[in-house]
């Protein structure tokens, strides 16, 4: 039997690859043939060239690309870890203890609808444009999904298990620690990626408004100098770095929690 050379699956993969190539080609061509002026849109080649140049030349925005990435990643991770450290325990406790839920809930409900972006002006008043203000904004946007997910996780605990533990004489704290937390874990893991996405988005917002380096700052500077290649490089790097950080977190999560995850 002769194996079919072009299966449907292969064909689809081929089309996908062609589609990406076509996308970049069209992007290049519409600028090259001046359908879109070069002041408004840089070609992929220009972005690539700038990427290489920015690796050794800090001009015109005053820092290397690697510095920008490093600063952004640092801020995002600090805010992210802080939001995990506070959001997850708070959400778990809110799910189980009535008093904590009643006390924390109104505050949480007030803070939840305010997007992280809206905190920027106030944070600049409080913290200046340094790293602490940005971490505060990132923390605020990351903490919300953490609290919600771990809260829902505890609430979704199978009531039969809780009743069983109670029958066997487990104390409130025992039930919380040995039944509610493990059963909430899948939801908590779900929060890790959601919170990361929230943190990364608000990081860019914070840097767009006030910063002295970072990827968002690179984008702002590109606008100031009317350098679309710089803006596009910044955007691509934001997307790429966010994607890579997400992958790394996912990998760590799978390694560390391989035994617990169902």
């Amino acid at each position: 039997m002769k194996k079919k050379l072009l299966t449907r699956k292969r064909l689809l993969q081929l089309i996908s690859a062609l589609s990406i190539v076509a996308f970049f080609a069209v992007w290049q061509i519409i600028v090259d043939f001046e359908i879109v002026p070069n002041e408004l849109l840089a070609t992929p080649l220009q972005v690539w060239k700038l990427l290489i140049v920015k690796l050794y030349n800090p001009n015109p925005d005053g820092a290397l690309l690697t510095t920008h990435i490093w600063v952004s990643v640092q801020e995002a991770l600090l805010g992210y870890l802080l939001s995990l450290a506070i959001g997850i325990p708070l959400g778990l406790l809110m799910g189980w203890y009535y008093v904590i839920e009643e006390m924390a809930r109104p505050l949480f409900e007030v803070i939840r609808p305010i997007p992280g972006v809206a905190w920027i002006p106030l944070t600049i008043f409080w913290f200046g444009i340094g790293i602490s203000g940005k971490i505060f904004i990132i923390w605020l946007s990351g903490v919300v999904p953490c609290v919600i997910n771990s809260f829902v996780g505890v609430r979704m605990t199978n009531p039969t298990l809780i009743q069983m533990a109670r029958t066997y004489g487990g104390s409130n704290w025992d039930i919380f620690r040995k039944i509610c937390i493990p059963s909430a874990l899948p939801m908590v893991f779900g929060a890790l990626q959601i919170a990361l996405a929230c943190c990364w988005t608000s990081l860019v917002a914070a840097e767009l408004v006030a910063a002295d380096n970072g990827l968002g700052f690179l984008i702002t500077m590109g606008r100031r100098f009317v350098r679309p290649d710089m803006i596009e490089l910044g955007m691509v790097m934001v997307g790429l770095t966010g994607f890579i950080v997400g992958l790394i977190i996912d990998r760590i999560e799978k390694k560390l929690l391989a035994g617990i995850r169902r």
Partner: protein
Amino acid sequence: METDSTIVVELPPVQENTPTFLESLVVELPPVQENTPTFLESLKIILMRFHFLSFLSIALVLTFWHFISVYKIFGGTFLPTPWAIVQEIWRLMHQELIGKNILEHTWASLHRVFIGWAIGCAIAIPLGIFMALNDFARAIVKPVFDIFKPMPPISWISLAILWFGLGEESKVFIIVIGSFVPCLINSFNSLRLVDPALYDAARMLGANRRQEIMEVAFFGILPATFAGLQISLSLAWSCVLAAELVGGRSGIGFLIILGMNQYKPAIIVAGMVVIALTAWLITFGMEHIEKLVCPWRRDIKV
């Protein structure tokens, strides 16, 4: 002899305690009280009802806030008192700031949100469904979409300003992008979330292909699609704020950046209160519409 060899198991009588109406009312109370409650215990029960603790916590926070800002614990005048903010909102409702009072600024933002959101969803939902139905469309669109997906919509602001200037178009553009992504993802996944048993049931009852689409798939994808609409609307609301922070002459985001530039924290906090209220109203409204549109959707509300 015979009776000795067989083992007679006496089952305990089955306890049937179906709660009466009155009992079902007190079921939610914490531990069952054996004696008549003492004064402290009854106080505890009262505290647990009526969200007393919630009010207490709000009152505590407002008090702390007041004293922090009155005695300038963190130094400076960076935090106005709660009462000052209420006054500020009242003032801004009657006095115009750059040609608009606070309600008109809010409306300016909402207006942009609705236009951008409607455009974004109008493109994303059909595209998502088409991608789910057609392998070739998916093969073409998905890789390009995956390039754009990880970029936060806010990072488009600079490019949008470069392309469209500081006017309405750039803000609407950002909102279109912001609401496009979650909408597309949800409507793309929605078809897969439809329970296959529903199709089987419909087919067994003699439905043809058209009826399967119109009467099963259509209603099956509604909940996920609606969730996409909801997510994208709240994302659009934060996008418009970001866009107005960076550049604009009206809108609630512009208002808070104006407060920053004029060094008036009261305006900022007043703006934030209005933002929270609006966001809350949006969520509330969407939830109600959702209940009207797809009442069969059940999930855990936080």
